[in-house]
């Protein structure tokens, strides 16, 4: 599903590589934790998948597409197959829960009837039934993140990228968030989650990729957060 082929990324005006010779593959339906200290290259990894950045060297394939050969024109099509969740939720403050989720479908031109059918399903899936009319500032952090996940998932992407989705959320609520991510993963969606949260990584027992100074220093099938290597 995601293939990194000796990828190196050096940002302009920086001598150190943000990612260095990263060579890995994530298969369809996998759940992968991306761990490592700040500045280790987790966000760069995610941005490369979205083609928000281009690799300095190496090749990246996402959903069978060679990103280097993808024209700008086709980048939106790639992004429709990838959902994104962030630490800061990125909801639209002037739209309610339903409108926030529906927005993702409206802007890619989905018909209204389709939106009316699909959006409530996804809102139920993330556990926000009955809260369609709430505005983001009336929701707790955990609930806001659920809205963001509903928005990321509403177009049934093949891949869900989550950049520290529990970073702003207390541990108890985080468990609920992880349950939703797990539920999404069980529908066959590949999930890549960058995180600092050791407890979550340890409890989920999923594949862990650890980055340090841009290099992959650990890649375990059923890993924990802080295991020595």
């Amino acid at each position: 599903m995601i293939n990194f082929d000796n990828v190196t990324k050096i940002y302009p005006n920086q001598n150190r590589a943000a990612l260095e010779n990263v060579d890995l593959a994530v298969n369809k339906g996998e759940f992968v934790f991306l761990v490592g200290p700040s500045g280790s290259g987790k966000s760069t990894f995610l941005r490369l998948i979205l083609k928000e950045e281009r690799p300095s060297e190496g090749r990246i394939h996402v959903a069978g597409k060679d990103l280097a050969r993808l024209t700008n024109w086709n980048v939106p099509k790639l992004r429709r197959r990838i959902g994104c969740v962030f630490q800061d939720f990125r909801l639209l403050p002037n739209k309610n829960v339903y409108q926030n989720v529906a927005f993702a479908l409206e802007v890619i031109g989905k018909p209204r009837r389709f939106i009316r059918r699909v959006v409530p399903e996804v809102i139920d899936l993330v556990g926000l039934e009955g809260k369609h009319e709430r505005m983001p500032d009336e929701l707790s952090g955990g609930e806001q993140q659920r809205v963001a996940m509903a928005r990321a998932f509403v177009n049934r992407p093949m891949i869900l990228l989550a950049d520290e989705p529990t970073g702003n959320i207390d541990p108890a609520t985080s468990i609920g968030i992880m349950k939703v991510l797990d539920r999404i993963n069980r529908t066959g969606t590949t999930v890549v989650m960058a995180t600092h949260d050791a407890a979550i990584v340890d409890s989920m027992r999923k594949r862990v990729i650890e980055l340090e100074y841009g290099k992959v220093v650990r890649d375990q099938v059923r890993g924990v957060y802080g295991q020595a290597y």
Partner: protein
Amino acid sequence: MRSNFVFQEIWVGLRRNLTMTVALVVVVAISLSLLGTGLLFVKQVDSTRTYWQSKVQISVYLCTADSANSACKGAVTPAQQAQLQQTLTSMPQVENVAYVSQAQAYALFKQDFSNDQSYVSTVKESDMPPSFEVKLRNPEADYQIVSSAVSGAPGVDSVIDEETILTKFYRLLDGARNAVVVVALILIVAAILLVANTIRLSAFNRRRETGIMRLVGASNFYIQLPFLLEGVLAGLLGWVLSAALLIGVKSLLLNNLQQYFSYNVGLSASDLVEVIVLAMCVGVLLCGVTSFLTLRRYLRV
């Protein structure tokens, strides 16, 4: 494409930076109406020119009993008059010669100054000199030859080239036109900068929305269209205002100017429509193209 979604976005964008939008609309309106006024002036000068070109080009005024000119020794005699007519008609440069008697001259005078009766009442028929109205085949080149052939001849008071009088008038109109066009061009530059700034602000105000749109895979076209239409809509609003202003300019300024110079060359309604349509094209293109170029800088993939 969900059109109501796009329109909603345009409305939100225009409302959010209302002050900028108002400034933009006003500047577009003024620059377009100045440009249009310039074009109206051009048309006015053209039509005036063709009007006068078809008329008399040289007037040969003949002596009257009380001419101020010392070359005149009493009123022109019938023999002198016949001689002059003979000279003029025989010249190859002359297309035709018409004699205007004192009575005819007075009638014309009364007609031309019909809106100033007090002036008319001070002039008697005998004050009006009779004249030969000479039409030349090629006024620019032949004026000198014809003029020198008759000026100073017995019975001739003065020879006046209508062109020289009209040239002053043309110069006035041309000057006004140039001034108007220069100001219009400066304002158009200001309008372009304002469009760019408005769109930039608008893009900044909605960076959250556009960021999400990019992430969920909205096409560039879909992301940019509301901004583009926002610029075009502002341009159209400005154009509507400028159309009103241009109609005002035509009916107040130009029509009065025409009355003042007492000639009868009006601009037709179709001239006005032509200028207004042109102003619309300029306004929409200006706003649309500027918005598009600005967006390419501020809303990248």
